[in-house]
């Protein structure tokens, strides 16, 4: 006698228990604290905040812990929490020119007002595994240049003085747009594209940005400026009639400077690709800036010849929470549809073999 498979509920409960067990690992080893994760795996936490699009280091650290270090899973956890939060309003545009920079570099100039400020970068480390980190050896305090963490002029503003680079443009009158509250309708405004890119998957944008450097929609980029630091977030209160600061966030900003030959409407000048990401996320900010510039092809009258210039392609596929969900849904049972396909293949196979049987005697006769 056949008994249909039952017990999905017990199976799920058991799987969750096993997951909790594996997450905890060896009980003889102390459990990770959220302070340890936020403090010592800070760049993982920053990526989760950026792509989870919620600025909260504690919750991001919790998500990293809960996800066993699977960052896309952690991003998903954070996103699923933020989506339930009430929206009180929209901040004023951030003034990144007023940023207290911890790192600020430009590849366009040897030196510049405010100087090149390396900050805590991997850039010039030798990638040699350091066995000294296996343990808790004491680490000396970092040195910060006197007068650092102050306001420094933006490279784009220096170039703008000569009129050789396009301006910031004016904020549009219809508000910032909000990809969470507006269904996507192509073509998207640049503001909406930037929101999507800012929380887009680092790997996806990195690969697309890389492809523009290799000739797919090449636009000769220079890293005009990369700056990392804290900026103030202000909210305009109608009751008061002015904007008040509600807190500070750390962001990474990248302004790519790109060659532009000019068009019928626009004189030859440098154009810009823009990247802005929560936390210290330099690779992501640079990749975002390359993609932003590529997506401006239509606006600048350039031929659309490669995937990074195609906004439907880029924006529809850059969200890793969407992507991982749909790819992984193939794990769900599909046996009802598979049954339908089985029936079809059997029928087509039978028809094929029947045709074969009809043809075969004819062939023999001919021979």
């Amino acid at each position, binding site marked *: *006698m*056949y008994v*249909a*498979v*039952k*017990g*999905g*509920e017990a*199976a*799920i409960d058991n799987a969750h228990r096993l997951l909790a067990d594996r997450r905890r690992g060896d009980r003889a080893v102390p459990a990770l604290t*959220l*302070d340890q994760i*936020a403090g010592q795996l800070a760049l993982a936490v920053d990526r989760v905040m950026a792509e989870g699009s919620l600025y909260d*280091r*504690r*919750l991001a650290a919790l998500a990293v812990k809960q996800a066993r270090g699977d960052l896309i899973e952690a991003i*998903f956890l954070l*996103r*699923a*929490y*933020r*989506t*339930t*939060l*009430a*929206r009180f309003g929209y901040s004023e545009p951030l003034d990144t020119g007023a940023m207290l920079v911890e790192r600020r570099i430009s590849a366009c100039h040897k030196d510049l007002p405010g100087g090149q400020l390396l900050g805590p970068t991997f850039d010039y480390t030798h990638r040699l595994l350091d066995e000294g980190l296996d343990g808790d050896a004491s680490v000396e305090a970092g040195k910060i240049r006197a007068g650092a963490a102050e306001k420094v002029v933006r490279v784009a503003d220096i170039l703008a003085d000569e009129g050789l680079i396009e301006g910031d443009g004016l904020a549009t009158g219809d508000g910032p747009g909000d990809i*969470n*509250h*507006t*269904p*996507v*309708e*192509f*073509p998207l405004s640049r503001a909406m594209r930037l929101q999507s890119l800012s929380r887009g998957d680092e790997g996806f944008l990195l690969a697309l940005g890389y492809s523009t450097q290799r000739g797919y929609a090449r636009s000769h980029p220079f890293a005009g400026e990369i700056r990392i630091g804290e900026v103030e977030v202000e909210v305009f209160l109608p009751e008061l009639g002015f904007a008040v600061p509600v807190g500070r966030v750390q962001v990474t900003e990248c302004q790519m400077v790109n060659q532009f030959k000019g068009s019928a409407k626009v004189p030859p000048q440098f154009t810009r690709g823009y990247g802005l990401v929560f936390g210290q996320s330099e690779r992501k900010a640079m990749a975002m800036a390359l993609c932003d510039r590529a997506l401006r092809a239509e606006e600048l009258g350039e031929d659309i010849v490669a995937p990074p210039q195609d906004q*439907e392609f880029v924006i*529809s596929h850059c969200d890793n*929470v*969407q992507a*991982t*969900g*749909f*790819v*992984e*849904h193939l794990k*769900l*049972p*599909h*046996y*009802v*549809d598979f*049954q*339908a*396909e*089985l*029936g*079809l293949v059997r*029928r*087509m196979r039978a*028809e094929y073999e029947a045709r074969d049987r009809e043809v075969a005697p004819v062939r023999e006769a001919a021979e």
Partner: protein
Amino acid sequence: MTSRTSTYNFAYLDEQTKRMIRRAILKAIAIPGYQVPFASREMPMPYGWGTGGVQVTASILGPRDVLKVIDQGADDTTNAVSVRKFFQRVAGVATTTKTGEATIIQTRHRIPEQPLREGQVLVYQVPIPEPLRFLEPRETETRKMHALEEYGLMHVKLYEDIARNGHIATTYAYPVKVEGRYVMDPSPTPKFDNPKMHRSEALQLFGAGREKRIYALPPHTDVVSLDFEDHPFEVQKFDRPCALCAAEGVYLDEVVLDDRGGRMFVCSDTDHCETRRADGHRGELAGDTT
């Protein structure tokens, strides 16, 4: 770092989100078969695992509802269990496996065999809501095609099937035309279920979370599967009854019994099968006891 607890609203979604989804549902009902864009939210289950259906259910669900969740026709498949537990946890609603007792049925890939009645709502989880998507990948283009009622491409595709195979080779997610206007994707249900959509007594709501679309079929709505005069639409037929309850004219799962080619065919709709067996129907492999 300060410690906080994160709490959630009744049925998980915040009220602003529910209102937005509710408005989309009302428009979807007023324009049967038209895909209404909505600002789909992240849900605590992955995209592709029913986030659209879950958002629709969460937005219509009230404390007095009785919820049934099926996947592949079964109440006890893991994803059905998971979605059902989610609503028990966040809304505290009563749940059932009985099709007749449910006020809301959320489904993936099947329509129950028992005809639905007035007042019931069937909520479909939809992966790709656009029936024209595999013919034309661009939303900007497919939207124009719907606006202009330009469905020639779909007929060409189906007819190419006939030219190549002698019959239409689409077995699930088989396109339908709603009230003579919109071509609609019924979600990946086997085409066996398409006739159940036509003039159903129940309200049918479709939610696609990742693709951010909601569409609907009010009760008593004409839903016609696309076909040709010389190749009329036909559903799958099984050449044997259910091995457990002896039901005929239902959709069957093929169960592999051993590695020597042994097979049995049983109802995909587990509630239908159990109800029939409780009523004394016996298939050839049912055994004597229930």
